[in-house]
C-alpha cells in the first residue's frame, strides 16, 4: 500500500503531473513530507496540497472493519475461528482454540527442552486432513540449525495417529506436504538490497515487519523458535521512579548465572504476539504462556514422549507476577551424579 503509485490514484491530472515532475512517485514519498514542504516542492497553494494529501491518504489508508465483522469472517471462513489446535488440551483451552492465525507465536527455551519437538508436532498437525483436526495444508519449515528429523516426524505421526499413518501412502503424502528449507549460511537468509548503503541500525527490523505482514495477509499461523542467553548484571532494568535499595542489588547477583532471558532483546519481545516459554524447574519441564493477549499466565508441566509432547496436567498452574517470563534451566546433576534412579523419564 505504501508503494502505491500516485499516478494511479485518480488525482486531478494537473496535480498528478506536478507530483511526477518533482520525483514524488509513491504514496510513501508524498506522505513523508509535511504540507509546507510539499507546498515548496510542488509550487502549489496550500489548499491544493491539503486536498491532494487528503485524497492520497484516503486511498492508501487500510480498510475499516468492525470488530464484529472481523469475528464473523473468521468464524465463517477459518478453521476453528482461526486457530490451529495443538492437541494439548490445556494449552488449546488457554489459547482459545490453539495457535492463532495471522500472528507471530514464539517458542523460547534453553537447549534441548523440546522446542523442535513441538515444531515437528505442529508441522504434522497442520498437514493432517481436516477430519483429524488438521489444516489439510502445506507447511514451510525453515530449519536454520539443521535440527529437522524426518524420521522423528514419522515416528510422532505413527504414534499419535496410527489409523492414518498405517494406511498405504499416507505417510508419504503427509510428509510430502512439509517443505523444509535449509539456508546454508546466515547471509543467504538475510540477503536484501541495501538501498542506502549505510549499515542498518536494526537489521532485524525489516524482517519482523515482513513476517508479521505475511502472517496477517495470508492468515496462517507463524511459529518461530528463539534461543536464550544469560542475563548480565546491567540488565536488571527499572524505571527512574522505581527506587532500588542496595540490599536488593547485592542479592540479585547470585541469580544472574542461572537466570536466562530470551535472545534478541526487548524490541523482539514487543514484536511477538504470543510467547510460549519452555523451561525446566525442579526436575520437571514446564510450558508457560508468558505473553498472550487472550490467555491468563498459566504454566503446564509436560514430558516428551514418542508421540510428541504430552501435558501432565490440563489445568495449568497460574503464575502471578513477572516470574512467568523467567526462564529456568537445570544443570546436568541428574545425569552426571548418576545414582541409578534419577535417569527415569
Amino acid at each position, binding site marked *: 500500500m505504501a508503494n502505491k503509485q500516485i499516478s494511479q490514484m485518480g488525482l486531478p491530472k494537473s496535480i498528478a503531473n506536478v507530483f511526477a515532475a518533482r520525483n514524488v512517485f509513491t504514496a510513501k514519498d508524498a506522505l*513523508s513530507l509535511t504540507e509546507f514542504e510539499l*507546498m515548496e516542492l510542488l509550487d502549489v497553494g496550500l489548499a491544493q496540497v491539503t486536498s491532494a494529501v487528503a485524497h492520497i491518504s484516503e486511498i492508501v489508508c487500510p480498510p475499516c472493519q468492525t*470488530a*464484529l465483522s472481523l469475528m464473523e469472517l473468521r468464524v465463517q471462513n477459518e478453521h476453528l475461528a482461526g486457530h490451529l489446535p495443538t492437541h494439548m488440551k490445556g494449552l488449546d483451552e488457554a489459547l482459545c482454540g490453539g495457535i492463532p492465525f495471522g500472528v*507471530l507465536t514464539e517458542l523460547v527455551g534453553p537447549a534441548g527442552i523440546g522446542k523442535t519437538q513441538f515444531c515437528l508436532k505442529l508441522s504434522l498437525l497442520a498437514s493432517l486432513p481436516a477430519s483429524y483436526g488438521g489444516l489439510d495444508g502445506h507447511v514451510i519449515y525453515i530449519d536454520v540449525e539443521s535440527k529437522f528429523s524426518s524420521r522423528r516426524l514419522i515416528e510422532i505421526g505413527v504414534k499419535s495417529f496410527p489409523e492414518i499413518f498405517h494406511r498405504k501412502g499416507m505417510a508419504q503424502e503427509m510428509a510430502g506436504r512439509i517443505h523444509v528449507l535449509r539456508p546454508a549460511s546466515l547471509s543467504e537468509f538475510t540477503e536484501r538490497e541495501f538501498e542506502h548503503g549505510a549499515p542498518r541500525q*536494526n537489521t532485524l527490523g525489516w524482517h519482523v515487519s515482513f513476517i508479521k505482514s505475511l502472517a496477517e495477509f495470508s492468515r496462517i499461523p507463524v511459529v518461530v523458535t528463539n534461543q536464550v542467553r544469560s542475563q548480565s548484571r*546491567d540488565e536488571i532494568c527499572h524505571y527512574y521512579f522505581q527506587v532500588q535499595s542496595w540490599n536488593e542489588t547485592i542479592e540479585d547477583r547470585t541469580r544472574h548465572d542461572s537466570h536466562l532471558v530470551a535472545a534478541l532483546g*526487548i524490541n523482539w519481545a*514487543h514484536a511477538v504476539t504470543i510467547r510460549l516459554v519452555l523451561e525446566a524447574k525442579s526436575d520437571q519441564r514446564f510450558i508457560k504462556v508468558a505473553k498472550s493477549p487472550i490467555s491468563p499466565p498459566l504454566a503446564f508441566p509436560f514430558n516428551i514422549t514418542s508421540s510428541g509432547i504430552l501435558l501432565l496436567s490440563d489445568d495449568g498452574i497460574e503464575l502471578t507476577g513477572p516470574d512467568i517470563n523467567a526462564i529456568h534451566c537445570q544443570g546436568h546433576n541428574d545425569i552426571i551424579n548418576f545414582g541409578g534412579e534419577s535417569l527415569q523419564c
Partner: protein
Amino acid sequence: MEVGRLPISASQRGKLIAAGYTTLSSFSSLSPSHLARDLKISDNEAAEIMRVASHSHRLDGSAAGCGTVNGAQTAWDMLHEEEMFPRITTSCMDLDNILGGGINCKEVTEIGGVPGIGKTQLGIQLAINVQIPVDYGGLGGKAIYIDTEGSFMVERALQIAEACIEDMSECGGLLRKDFQACQLKMHPNNILENIFYFRVCSYTEQIALINYLDKFISEHKDVKIVIVDSVTFHFRQDFDDMALRTRLLSGMALKLMKLAKDFSLAVVLLNQVTNKYIDGSFQLTLALGDSWSHSCTNRVILYWNGNERYAYIDKSPSLRSASAPYSVTSKGIRNSASNCKRIKMM
C-alpha cells in the same frame, strides 16, 4: 499583513513581490483583472489569490479594538466544557482515582510498558468502556482501534464485552433503574459492532490513516476514543533517517491533538519500552525518544512491582504523580486483589 505569510505557492508570491506588492493592503482594493494584468497571470488565478488574501485578513484583523483575543477561549469556558464530558473509566477503581476519574476526552494520553504488562488489555478495555451508556455514567460512544502490531484478538474483546455487560446489569439492579431497554440493546455483538478496527502495516499507512481520520470521524460523529496500539512499532523498524522520524512523529502528534480537540474525543497511544543508558546504568524508558515524550498531554507507565502490576502517572499537567495497582483478569482490567491496596503518592 505581509505577502510572505500568505499560503500561496512560491511562484505566485514571487510574482507579487516582483510586481511591487509587498503587503495585503497594497492590492486588496484592486480588481482581479487588474491584478491579473499586472502579474501576467490568468483572471482565475488572480481571483484565487485575492480570495486567499481576504480570508487571511479576516482572521487577522478583526481583533483590533475588542477586549478578546481572536481564536482564544477563556479558561472559565474551558472549565465548563471539561465538566460536560465524563471521563472514560478503566474498570479499575484505583487506576481511575489516580487518573482523576478516568481517561480524559480532548487530551492525548500515552500509555507505555514492558511486553506482557497489559497495554493491549487496557486498550481493549477502554474501547469497550467508552460504549457504556450515558445512563450508567459512560459516554455511549464508539471506538476506533488502530492496530499496528496485530495484537488485537477478537476473542478477548468478546470476553471483556460480556464481562462489562454483566457488571452493568449488576450495577443497574442495585440502582433499580428501568433498564429493560438498555438490557435488550446491549448484547456483546452490539459492543463489537461499535469498535472500528484498522490494521496498519507500515508507517505510511499509519500517517495516511491519521490524515483520513478527520474525514472518517466527521462521518461517524459518535466516535469518542481513538486507540493506537502501538504507535511505536512501525517507527522502530527500518528507519535510517532519524530526523525524518522525529518530523513524522511530531506531525502525527499534532494531528492527533487536533482530532482530540476538534471532535472532543480521547486519544490513547500505546507505546513500547527501550533501554537507555542514563547516569551510569541502563534504565527503562518509553520508546521513540525525547522529542516524542513532549508530544503527549498525559503519560502513564505500566510496570511490575514485585508480583503486581502498577500504573504510574509520569507526566500530566493536572494530575499528580501517583501509582496504583491493577490486575488483568479474564474479565479485563480490574482492581488488584491484594489486601494492602494503597495509592502511593510520589
